[in-house]
Structure formats: C-alpha cells, structure tokens
C-alpha cells in the first residue's frame, strides 16, 4: 500500500497498468488496492498542481484565521464541516495555537474572496472573528517548487 501511495502521490496520472508494472503486481490487484484506498477515504482525490500565475489564471488565494465558539456536543466539527463545504474553500484545518480554523480560500479576485469572508464566513453563528491574509507569491505548492525546470545535467556517458 505504501509503495502504491508513494507512486500516486508523486504522479497521480500513472495508469493502473503502469502502476502494476512498477509494483510487480497484476492490474487487478492494483485496481483493488486503489478501490480500497478510495473506499476508506485514504485517497481523497486527484488533481493537477497548478501555478496560477504561469497558467495565466485570474486567481487570488487567502489564508483565513477563524476563531469559533465550540459547541457542547462535537466541539468544532459541525461548524468546520459547514465551512469546508463552500466551493471557495480549498482546504480547511483545525489548528492549535491562537486561532481555531485555518481556511484556505480561492477566488478570481480580491473582491470575490472579501465577499465570501464578509457575507458567508463571518456571518455564520459561532464564528467569533476572522483574519484574512492574501497570498502574494507561490514558491512551493503541494510538494512542487514553482518555476523550476528539471534538466538532466549529467554527462551522457560516465564510468
């Protein structure tokens, strides 16, 4: 399982047959392993990691610190799950430290993100406060260094 996850985490485009070849297993076995991982929610999904600037996308991201009032039953879960379901929210984590939720939000421009925060997020019952930090530049995203080409600089033949 670990070897399969390592391959997929590095390149989710690998087909079942390519994975089977690399792992020395049959395609049916690999398909079953993937189904199992997806079934139990170990694999949440697959996507391309995009640098919006280089892709020429209109794009703004923000990290929003959110303070919540915990509920008697369930603590932060109900409210956190409610926030996480908004399309604008790309990631949502419960944090230790000075605030409760770290909410990553994406939109086409500042206004869209601001509207989401002021109209949706901060108006929720239980949300005590928000602090919005806009992202200025991507250096690394989901394990990939931005703007780094990979060239093989080795000698073509060496001992």
């Amino acid at each position: 399982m670990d070897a399969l996850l390592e391959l997929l985490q590095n390149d989710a485009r690998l087909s079942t047959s390519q994975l089977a070849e690399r792992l020395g297993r049959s395609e049916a076995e690999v398909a079953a392993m993937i189904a199992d991982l997806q079934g139990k929610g170990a694999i949440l999904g697959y996507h391309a990691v995009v640098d919006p600037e280089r892709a020429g996308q209109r794009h703004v991201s923000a990290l929003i610190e959110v303070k919540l009032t915990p509920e008697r039953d369930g603590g932060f879960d109900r409210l956190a799950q409610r926030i996480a379901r908004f399309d604008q929210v790309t990631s949502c984590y419960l944090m230790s430290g000075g605030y409760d939720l770290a909410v990553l939000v994406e939109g086409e421009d500042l206004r869209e993100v601001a509207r989401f925060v002021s109209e949706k997020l901060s108006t929720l019952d239980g949300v005590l406060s928000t602090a919005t930090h806009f992202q200025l530049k991507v250096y690394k995203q989901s394990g990939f260094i931005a703007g780094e080409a990979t060239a093989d600089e080795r000698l073509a033949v060496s001992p």
Partner: protein
Amino acid sequence: MKPLQDRIAHHVRSLPRSGIRDFFELVVGRDDVISLGVGEPDFCSPWHIREAAIFSLEKGQTSYTSNLGLLSLRQEIAKYVEGLFKVSYDPASEILVTVGVSEALDLVFRALLNPGEEVIYHEPCYVSYNPSIVLAYGKPVTIQTKVDDNFVLRASDVEAAITDKTRIILLNFPTNPTGAVEPVEELEKIAALAIKHDLIVVTDEIYCELLYGGSDGMSPGEHVSIASFPGMRERTVLLHGFSKAFAMTGFRLGYACAPTVLTEAMMKIHQYSMLCAPMMSQQAAIEALKNGAPEVERMRRAYAQRRNLMLKRFAEMGLPCFSPGGAFYMFPDIRKYGLTSKEFALRLLEEESVAVVPGSAFGEAGEGSVRACYATAYEKIEIAMDRMAAFVKRLG
C-alpha cells in the same frame, strides 16, 4: 627539442584511454539521445544535504581540515559503518576521508604495492582498477567472471591466480558494471584464501546500500562485507563513499577504513597529494549520515522499480540478461546477435538514439554484453526499452 610525446612517462604513455571516454565523445552533442550510459544517480543530492553544504559556506567553513578528515565526520562514519558492515573502526586512527573512492583506490595501491607486485581482481569491472594498479607500478591480474555463472567470483579461480608476487585481492560487490552480488559462501572461501596466503583484501563496496532483495527485488537486502568475517578486519581495506546511495557524486567524497598502520600509510600519500577532502563536502556528508537514510531508501525503491522494468522488457524482447542483485546497472548478453559490444552500442546509438556502454570498456570479460544504467527516469527508460526492442528485432 624532443617531441613532447616522448616526455610522457612510459607507464602513462602505454595506459589506454577509457573506452567510456571514447564512447562519450560520440554521444556528446546529440540531443535526441536517451542515455543509459551514465554511472551516477539521476536524483539530485537530497536538499537537506545540499543545504548543509550551503550552511557550511555561510558560516565561513572554508579552511583545510585534518588530513584524515573532520573528526566529527569520521565519528559518524564509524557509527554508520558499524551498522551497515558490522565492523567497528576507531575514528581517531582507522578512517581516512578521501576525494571519492577513486582517490582511496589510488592511495591503497600506492601505499601497499612495490613495483611488480600483483593485485588480483575480477572482470568485468570498474574502469579505473587496471590503471590505478598500473600507475602504482603494480601488476593487474584479472579473473574473468562469466555471465553463464552469474558473474560469481569463484574462490578456486582466485586461488589459481595467486603467485608469490600476489599482495592484494580487490573485490567490488555489488559490481559495476554487472550488478552482481557475491554469494556469501564464496566470499567466505575467498576470505579463507586471503588468510591462508597472507594477502590484503581491498573491498570497494560503494554500491552496498543499493540491493534488491526478495523475490520481487523490492525489499532492501542485507549487505555482507568480507571485512566482517573472523580474521579479516586486520587484513582488509574497506572502501565506501557517498556518491551512489546518497546521490552525491559531485561532492567527491569517499573513505577508507583499515587498521591504523595501513590508514597511516595511505594518509601519508593523501596529505602530500590532496591534503584533505573539501570541507563543505565533509559537512554535507555529516548531514547525509545523520539524516539521509529515508532518502536513500526512497531512491533505492525507485531504482528497484526501474530494475524490474528493464528486466521485464529485456525478457520480452528476447535479450538475455543476468538478474542483478545490486547497484543500478543491467548487463544484458548480446552475443547471439554476432556483433561486438562496441558495434552493438554504436548501432543502437546511430539507429535508435539510445546510449549504452560497450561491455568491452569494463575489460575483456565484458565483451559480449553492454551496460545499461537504470539511474534514469522511469518514463525515459520506457522509451529507451521501446527503441531497444525495435533495434534487437531488426537484428533478428
């Protein structure tokens, strides 16, 4: 004035150029080539190791170090070697940090050989063994290991090669270029021979972290060093380094572990010729030994997958290939096509733009095979295998 050619020392003049160098010049300047001709990892040195080198420069650590190398590095090496090879060495006097295993090889021959004394080693082998011995005025004595015998070095062949001039048995397992790993029983017999004939064993174990164990080649095998056998530590020079497992070829860092008297003799030459290995490389190496194990294993797993890919593809295209237990090389047997290894490699380069190294570059015993390195991206190997399959199909 005498022609400059005549000024070159005789033993240097007669030294052949490396077959690898010749082939390299044919490949240079062609950008469509997928090269399986390299002898180093495709991975860049892990960032935490590079970062340690940068930090060392930032701190201004740009001086000489002790001739033996930084004590803190030798202490880390001692720990690492004890864990991996099951032999303990005193960091104060039994470990010498060198500029790659290449320098350590040069040192050991220069330190131990009197003119005309013999070194027995197995071919096919790394290209510098013969010249390193010749440059130390020693006499190379080769044993031809065979693909039909899985490139095992037979103790009986070693014994037959021993004369009253023999001083050293040089071993390299896992082997470049074949990937062969010596069976422990045979290694034990060779150790017994070394003891019986009072010989020094020099063992180059640079690929020892890169083993492919288990029936599927995916699990890390267990390395056995001849230095760990009873009675061997006192007559063995163990050579290892950072280039392969830690992907640090450009750092040029290796080491020799040996009893104090031998280490001292090598150090004498090293201090006059090299003085010490570069400080920033040594600092990077400390980081590698302390925290590099997970990255080494990650790279090993990647090599294992590529190894299995090549084995499978070679089998599918009907190219017989020995199943290597270590390193990152395949050494397929091309004899059935009736071409020399050089002809095969040249035509493969010309017709399909895939570079492999002719087996003859690794000594006489390498003729009949080519070396294909799998330290290259999986996707590139896939394309190279498609091209090779088309090529051997045409050869029929």
